[in-house]
C-alpha cells in the first residue's frame, strides 16, 4: 500500500534529482563565462559557443521541468517562494530569457546589436544564473522571512495567503554570508564542470592547454566555498518538525543529525563529493584523461540530490521561515494524495526520457569537436 507520506517522500526525491541534474547542466552557464577569457581569437570563441550551443536546451528544459514539478508536487512552495522572493526569481528568469536567443542570434547577419552583445548576455546568464540559483537554494537551509495564513483567503480585501515580510522580496538573501558562499560555490562548480566538458568535447591544441590551467583556478575556490557552506550548515541550527505536534522548532546541528540518522544519504553524499573531486583531480594530473566530466557530473548530481534530500527528509523543513510555524515541509506544502499518485504514474516515463536523451547525446558526440566540424556545419552558431 502506497501511503501519502511515501508519495511526498518520493516526490521530494524527484525534485532533488531534478535539482541535481540542473546543477550538473549548469556547466553550460559556467562555459558561457569563459567566452571572453579562455578564447582569444574569433575561431576559438566560435568553437566554445558551438559546443555549448548544442547543450543549452537541456539546462533550460531541466529548469522549466524543475519549476513545473515543484508546482505540481509542492504548490505552496511555488506560491510562497516565487510570489515572495520576487526579485531573485525574476533576475534568474531574466538571465535565462536572454540566454535562449543569444546562441541562435549571435552570429546571424542582421542581429541588430552585434555578436559581442549576445556573447555579453551569455556571460551575464552564466554569472547571474549560477550565483543566484546557489543563493536561492541556500535559503532552503538558512531560512527566509514569510508568513503563511490560509485563512486570509476569506478576507476579501487582503486575500493573499503567503506574505513575504521583507520589503526587498528575496534580495535580502544576498546579505547572508552563508547564502553567498553557496552562490559562489555553484558559480565555480559550473565553471569547473564546463572546463571538464571542454576537455571532453573540444579538439584544439591552444584551447586544450588553457583548460588544464584554468581547471585548478576554478576547482580550488569551488571546494573552499562549498566546504565552508557545508561545514557551517552542519554546525548550525536547523529547522526540525515535531512529527507528533507538527510544531517547527530550531534544533542544534539538525542537518548533521540528519546525516547521521540517514546513513544512506550520508554515504551517497560522500560518494558524490569523492566522484566530483576524482574527476577534477585526475583531469589535473593527466592530460590524456578526458572523462572527468562524467565522474564530476554524476558526482554533482548525487551530491546536490542528497543535499536536498537532507533538507527535506527526517522531519525537516525544506523551506524554513524565521516565523517558524509558517515553514514549509514536504507534508504541509504538498499536493493531494490523488495528484501525487497521478503524477507518480507519469514519472514512470522518466527513465524512458533519460534513455532517449542518452541515446541522442551519444549519437551526436561520437568524436570530439574541432573547427572543421563547426565550419562544415550548416547550422553552426
Amino acid at each position, binding site marked *: 500500500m502506497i501511503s501519502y507520506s511515501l508519495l511526498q517522500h518520493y516526490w521530494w526525491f524527484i525534485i532533488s534529482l531534478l535539482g541535481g541534474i540542473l546543477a550538473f547542466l549548469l556547466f553550460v552557464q559556467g562555459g558561457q563565462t569563459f567566452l571572453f577569457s579562455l578564447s582569444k581569437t574569433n575561431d576559438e570563441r566560435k568553437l566554445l559557443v558551438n559546443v555549448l550551443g548544442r547543450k543549452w*536546451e537541456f539546462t533550460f528544459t531541466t529548469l522549466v521541468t524543475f519549476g513545473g514539478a515543484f508546482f505540481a508536487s509542492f*504548490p505552496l512552495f511555488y*506560491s510562497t517562494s516565487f510570489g*515572495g522572493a520576487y526579485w531573485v526569481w525574476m533576475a534568474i528568469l531574466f538571465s535565462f530569457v536572454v540566454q*535562449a536567443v543569444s546562441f541562435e542570434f549571435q552570429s546571424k547577419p542582421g542581429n541588430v546589436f552585434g555578436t559581442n552583445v549576445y556573447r555579453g548576455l551569455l556571460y551575464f546568464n552564466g554569472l547571474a544564473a549560477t550565483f543566484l540559483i546557489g543563493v536561492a537554494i541556500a535559503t532552503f537551509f538558512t531560512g527566509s522571512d514569510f508568513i503563511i495564513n490560509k485563512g486570509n*483567503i476569506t478576507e476579501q480585501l487582503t486575500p493573499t495567503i503567503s506574505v513575504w515580510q521583507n520589503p526587498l522580496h528575496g534580495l535580502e538573501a544576498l546579505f547572508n554570508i552563508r547564502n553567498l558562499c553557496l552562490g559562489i560555490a555553484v558559480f565555480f562548480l559550473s565553471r569547473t564542470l564546463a572546463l571538464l566538458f571542454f576537455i571532453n568535447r573540444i579538439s584544439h591544441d591552444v584551447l586544450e592547454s588553457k583548460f588544464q590551467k584554468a581547471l585548478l583556478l576554478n576547482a580550488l575556490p569551488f571546494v573552499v566555498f562549498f566546504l565552508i557552506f557545508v561545514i557551517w550548515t552542519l554546525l548550525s541550527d536547523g529547522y526540525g518538525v515535531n512529527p507528533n505536534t507538527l510544531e517547527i522548532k530550531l534544533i542544534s546541528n539538525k542537518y548533521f543529525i540528519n546525516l547521521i540518522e540517514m546513513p544512506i544519504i550520508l554515504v551517497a553524499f560522500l560518494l558524490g563529493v569523492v566522484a566530483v573531486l576524482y574527476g577534477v583531480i585526475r583531469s589535473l594530473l593527466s592530460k590524456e584523461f578526458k572523462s572527468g566530466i562524467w565522474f564530476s557530473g554524476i558526482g554533482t548530481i548525487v551530491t546536490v540530490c542528497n543535499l536536498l534530500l537532507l533538507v527535506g527528509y527526517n522531519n525537516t523543513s525544506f523551506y524554513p521561515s524565521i516565523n517558524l510555524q509558517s515553514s514549509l515541509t514536504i507534508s504541509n506544502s504538498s499536493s493531494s494524495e490523488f*495528484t501525487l499518485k*497521478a503524477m507518480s504514474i*507519469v514519472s514512470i516515463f522518466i527513465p524512458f526520457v533519460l534513455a532517449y536523451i542518452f541515446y541522442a547525446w551519444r549519437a551526436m558526440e561520437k568524436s570530439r569537436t574541432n573547427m572543421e566540424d563547426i565550419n562544415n556545419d550548416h547550422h553552426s552558431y
Partner: protein
Amino acid sequence: MKLMDVSLLDWSRAQFAMTAMYHWLFVPLTLGLGVIMSIMETIYVRTGNEEWKRITKFWMTLFGINFAIGVATGIILEFEFGTNWSNYSWFVGDIFGAPLAIEGILAFFMESTFISIMFFGWNKVSKSFHLASTWLTVTGATLSALWILVANAWMQHPVGMQFNPITVRNEMVDFWAVISPFAIHKFLHTVFSGWVMGSLFVVGISSWYLLKKREINFAKNSILIASIFGLSASLLVSLTGDSSAYDVAQHQPMKLAAMEGIYKGEKGTGLIAFGILNPEKKMYNDSIDPFLVKVEIPKMLSILGYRDKDAFVPGINDILKGGYETNNGKAMSFEDKQERGLAAIESLKEFQNSNTKHDEATAMIEKTKLKKNFSEFGYGYLKHPSELVPDIPMIFYSFHLMVALGLFFIALFGVVFFMTYKNTIESTRWIQWICLFSIPLGYVAGELGWIVAEMGRQPWAIQDVLPLKAAISGISSDSVKITFFLFLILFTALLIAEIRIMLQQIKKGPEME
C-alpha cells in the same frame, strides 16, 4: 494589515497579457512551420531528391530563429503563475500544476533532445534517424501545446476537482475529467490555427521569391505543400472553432454574449455577420441600442450555440438578472450568486474557527454549507454586477475580425492551391502580393483569438471560483511595473532583432548544397 494595492491587479494583468501576447507571436509559427518542414523532409527522404533537402534546410533555418525567441518568451509565463498569481498557485496548484509538470517531462525534453539532432545532425546520423528527429521535435512542441492548453481550458471550465476546506484549496479527484472535451476542442483549434500561420508564412515568403523572380522552383514547391496544408488546416480551424464556440455557449454564457454584443436575450437568436457597435452605449443596463448597424443570419447563433434553431441565447442583462431556463434549472441572478458566494466564504471562515477550537459538530455543519454554495465561491469577492461584464467592444470586434480572417484564409489557400495546380501562380502577381501581405494577418488572427478567450472570461482566474483580485501575489505594484517595462523593452528589442535576422535570411535565400 496591508490592504491590496488596486493598481497591482492591473499591472499584474498587464504583465501577464504582454508576455503571453509576445509568446503567442512565435508559437503558432513553430507549430505550423514545424509540420511543413517535416513534410518536406519526408519527401526528401522518400524521393532522395536533393532539392527537397535544400528546401527543408531553408525553412528549418527560419524555424530555428523563431523557435529560440519562442522559448525565451515562454519560460517567464510558467513562472509568472507563481511570481504574480501566488494565491492562484496554491488555490488550484493541485490541479493546474500537474499538466505543467507533464508538459516538462513528456514534451519539453522530447523537443529539446531531438531539436539538437535536427539542427546539427545532418552529417552525423542516418537520413531516417534525422527525419524521425524532425518529426519528434514537432511532436514535442505540439504535446507541449496540448498540456498547457489543457491547463488553460481547465481555468475556463473547472472540472474534476473538489474543494478541501482543511487545506483551503481545490484538489484533483478525476485526472481524465481535466482533459475535457472543452480542453480537446481548445487544443485542436489552437494547434490548427498554428498550422494556418505556418502555411501563410511559407506561402507569403515563397510569393516574395516569385515577385523577385528568384528561386522559382523552390518557391513553387513550397507553395504547393503549404497551400494544401493551409487549406486543410483552415477548414479544420473553422470546424474546431464551431466546437469551441459551442463549449463557450454551454459554460461561459457571458463570453458568448460579449462576442455577439447581446444585451437582451431571445429565442432563435441570429448570428451577427457584420455589425458596428454604438459607441454611445456605456452601461450594460442603459436603454441605448447597442448597434449602429448590424447584419444578422437568422437563428444561426441558436443553432451554433445550442444546436436548436429556437434555443434561448441569454444576453448580458439576462445573465445578471437570471430567471431564464438552463440545462441545470433556472439561472441565478448576480445577487443570488453573490449571496451564495459570501455564504461560502463565511462558511469557510467558520469552518476554520471551529476546526481550531476542535468543535467538530459546527465544523461539519459549515463544511456542508460550504459544499452547497461552493460553485459560486468566487462571486463572494465581487461587489457589483458590472464586474462580471467584460469589455464588450474589445471582445465583439476581436471575435468578428478573427472569424472574417479565418474565412479569408480558407479562400486564399483555395485560390493559391488552384493556381498552383493550374501552374498560373508564377505569372499572377496580384495573388503573390496578397499572399505576402497576408502573413501579418495570421498573427493578428491568432492574437485576436486569445483576446476573445482571455478578456472574454474576465473577471475570472478560475471561472466562477476565483476572481483575479483574489488570485494575486502580495507584492507592490511598483515591483510589477518595473518588471513589466523590463520585459517590454527586452521582448521588443528581441522581436526587432528576430525580424531583421529573418529578413536577412530570406534575402539570402536557400543555400546551394
